């Protein structure tokens, strides 16, 4: 029952033992605990329900966008399919609107459906009070340059990678190569155990040996 509840309610309150924030996590002070609405019109608390102790990817968009957003969403769809085994379990993707006045949950649902992102576990589209959405946008995506920070369209081509469980923050251009995006996402993964590191090293060495045998040098250095 417990397991079912966990897997089915991916935006529900997570069990504390599964998603534990890092000791240095800024918590709701920076993330805010604003009440937001998902594309399925569910109310969620931004920090408690979506961020707390989790590894998340956050991008900004708006439903009526004909510029970067559709392209970025397509890219994210590919990133999602690459990481689909983890999505909704230990990795979550949030697409937040920069036009909350225009984008109600229904508009976000339409957008998600249009881009084949509707119903994918772990991918949530979010809207809310413009006051809260602006606070979150500045707290997470601020570049300390007034002209850039006020340009909501400029933010639609940034992907924030945050792991509240390890308190790691990174960002990547969603138009970067897939290997770059995936590598950056992995940088925020929780530290591997010693056995996992040994196994990864063993695999890497096998790959290097194979390349050396084939090409005479390490090709993917």
């Amino acid at each position, binding site marked *: 029952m417990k397991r079912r509840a966990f897997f089915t309610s991916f935006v529900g309150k997570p069990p504390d033992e599964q998603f534990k924030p890092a000791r240095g996590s800024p918590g709701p002070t920076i993330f*805010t605990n604003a009440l937001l609405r998902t594309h399925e019109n569910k109310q969620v608390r931004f920090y408690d329900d979506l961020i707390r102790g989790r590894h998340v990817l956050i991008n900004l968009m708006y439903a009526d966008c004909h510029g970067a957003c559709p392209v970025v969403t397509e890219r994210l769809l590919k990133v999602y399919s690459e990481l689909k085994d983890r999505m909704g379990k230990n990795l979550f993707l949030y697409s937040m609107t920069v036009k909350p006045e225009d984008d109600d949950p229904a508009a976000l649902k339409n957008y998600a459906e249009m881009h084949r992102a509707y119903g994918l576990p772990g991918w949530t589209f979010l809207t809310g009070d413009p*006051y809260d959405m*602006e*606070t979150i946008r*500045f707290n997470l995506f*601020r570049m*300390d*340059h*007034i*002209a850039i*920070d*006020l340009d909501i369209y400029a933010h639609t081509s940034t992907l924030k990678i945050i792991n509240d469980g390890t308190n790691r923050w990174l960002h990547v251009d969603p138009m970067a190569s897939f290997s770059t995006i995936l590598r950056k996402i992995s940088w925020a993964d929780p530290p591997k155990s010693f056995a996992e590191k040994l196994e990864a090293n063993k695999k890497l060495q096998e790959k290097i040996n194979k390349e050396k045998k084939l090409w005479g040098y390490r090709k993917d250095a």
Partner: protein
Amino acid sequence: MGEAWLSPFVAAEFKEGTVRRSAMLLGLILVCLLSAHSAIAQRGCELNIVGTWSTADQSNPILYRFTQDGKVTALSRSGSNGEDFREIATADYVLDNPKAPKVVLLKELADRGKFPLGTAALDITGYDDKSVTVKILGQDAVRWTRVDPNRYFMVLAGRIRTFYDGGGPSFPMLIKTDGRKTEIDAVGLFPRGSYWDFGRVPEQVYSHFMKETDNDSEVMFRLEITGVQYERALKIVRTWDRRAREGALLYPDVTMDNILLAKGVTESLNQCGERIKLYKLDWSIQDYISNSPQDKPETTRIPYLYFQKLKRLNESLHVGDEKFHAATRAGSPQSGH
């Protein structure tokens, strides 16, 4: 021969009409872009129909009072002095889009008098901060102007050489007066001890800027605004006040928040068309206030320089003390919080 000036490739294409087709297509795209641009330019401008509107006919003006609950009352002039109005009739109204209506549907109420416009559909063909142009099928378009007993002012106040870094207090002040009672809302950067703070400005700080000054370290630009501009600016000012109270400011450095406030309030004046000449404070290479090669100003000084620039650009809009005090009847100001 006529196409000799064209390259052989283009000339061949021209013969086939490809270039002509491309030119037509390009023209069509340009028209679409221009119409899209004008649609976008109007997007931020909202019309709040609630309030009292007067028809342009000065000999027999009719007032239409729209209320929030979907009722509109027609009033006509009565009495010998011509300043009293009596209720003629009341009708129901429905808007097709509450934020940017294009059609107002009126429905007469059986027991509430004969409504001058009857049961009709009013097409809203244009609007700005002061007026709305409406048209009934088969009649000429008429302009209604908003009737408001209050007068509204915005004061952009700033001073330098107060803080240790050469900056000083700077804030926008919004004033609403009906000649007897005056409400003032001032939010921004103000001195607190030897440092500065951001939030609702204390009365002893803003009251200094209620009158003009010759001091070259101070700027005071006062302009009269419409009720709609006032409401828009007040919303911004109150949102920043809320941010300051709730610790939800957008920058950790409050002097940056103050710049955002100054920009937001002044730019809101032009949301429904150019009412003042604005300066583009955007940290670009053309923005010599924030990017001055000689003197890179501290963020505490930028709003002062910005307000000074706006005053220079709009000198004719500045409301002097005499005119301002006549409007407020020099009554003691009452804080709006």
